[in-house]
Structure formats: C-alpha cells, structure tokens
C-alpha cells in the first residue's frame, strides 16, 4: 500500500526551539508539499519541492524552511518555534505531472508550541 509517512503524530516543543518535521513517501513521486491546516483557514501551502534540492515558497513560508536531500524525504524546519506555529502540519506527494494531480497526503503531525 503506497503511502506518505509523517514521523510524528504529536509533538510538543518549547518556544525558540528548532523543530524538524519529517515526511517520507514510497511512491517515487517528484513533487512533495508541506501544508498547514488551521480551522477556518483550510490547507495553506508552506513550501513545495519539485525535485531533489529544489524548493519553491508557498503562500505562508515565513518562519519555515525546508530540506530535500533525497527524493523520498522532505523535511520542514521551524528555525525558532513560536506559539503561532501551533497547528496541524500535513505532508503530501504527487507525480511530476498527473492529469488528476495525484496527491497523496500523510496523516499529519499536530505540533503544539508552548
């Protein structure tokens, strides 16, 4: 069963900590995405990667960075966590081009910054 795996289901971090959220896909997809999900705001794109070492800013990149050293792994980094980054984070992957976009989502990481 193909899937996108997010390393942590729940995380609690302190303000100012550097936080790493990891995502691994086993579908050999070129595209990987990080979204943030908040009530009333839906899914907002943080960063997008279309190839190894390639990245593109999404709609809300401030306070975040990403790393993609291998095709199957896409990491989201909070350089200095703040309470307003408390949220559900969703990773997704898709083929380079797909008529129906072919998004597969992970189950999410709920991050709480205290």
């Amino acid at each position, binding site marked *: 069963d193909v899937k996108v795996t997010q390393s942590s289901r729940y995380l609690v971090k302190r303000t100012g900590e550097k936080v790493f959220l990891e995502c691994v896909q086993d579908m050999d997809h070129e595209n990987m995405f990080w979204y943030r999900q908040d009530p009333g705001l*839906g899914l*907002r794109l943080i960063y997008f990667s279309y190839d190894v070492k390639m990245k593109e800013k999404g709609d809300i990149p401030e306070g975040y960075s990403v790393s993609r050293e291998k095709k199957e792994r896409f990491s989201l980094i909070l350089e200095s966590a703040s309470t307003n980054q408390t949220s559900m984070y969703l990773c997704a992957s898709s083929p380079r081009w797909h008529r*129906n976009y072919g*998004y597969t989502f992970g189950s999410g990481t709920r991050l709480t910054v205290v």
Partner: protein
Amino acid sequence: QQQVKQSPQSLIVQKGGIPIINCAYENTAFDYFPWYQQFPGKGPALLIAIRPDVSEKKEGRFTISFNKSAKQFSLHIMDSQPGDSATYFCAAGKGGYKLSFGAGTTVTVRA
C-alpha cells in the same frame, strides 16, 4: 489571500438530508476542481473531481455541480449517512501539479 473561497464553515444535517458545500474562484486558469474528504486523524483523500468543460459529475451519492460563467462549484451529498461526517475541502488546480485549497467544511450527519 485564499484563491478558493469555501462556505459554509460547518453544517449539520439529519440522515438522508442533502448537505451542500459551495466554492468560488477567480483565476480562470484553473483547469481542475477536486473535492477532498478528511476523517479525524487522517489526511485528506480525493473524493471526486471535475473539469471546467463539464457542468455536473456524479460518483455514487456525491455530485459536483460546476458553473463556469459564475466561477462557482458545489458538492452535494445525496442521502447522507452518519459515515459521511467528515471535513470536506474544495480545491482548484492549474499546471498539473499544484492545488489551492478552500477553508474546509465540517459536515455532521446525525442519525
């Protein structure tokens, strides 16, 4: 700013009712309009999708209506069941790789 506006934020219906969720967009370059369904503790999963050359698409109890001139589309859940209780997201895509999502609608179907 969100490129896809979705309403309502939540709705409650009785079993057998027809919840309707509406979405609107501005960018006429969008060429693909999917709906995703998300259950608690899970990531969103593709439910049904439509392209702008079609005005309606049905898959089982789920129907998308699409109005190209008004730049609006909607999801209808016919004969809704408690198992349909979930959060639904509309989205719009262009270029074959990137989707913009709406704010989401939490649907509760009471038995």
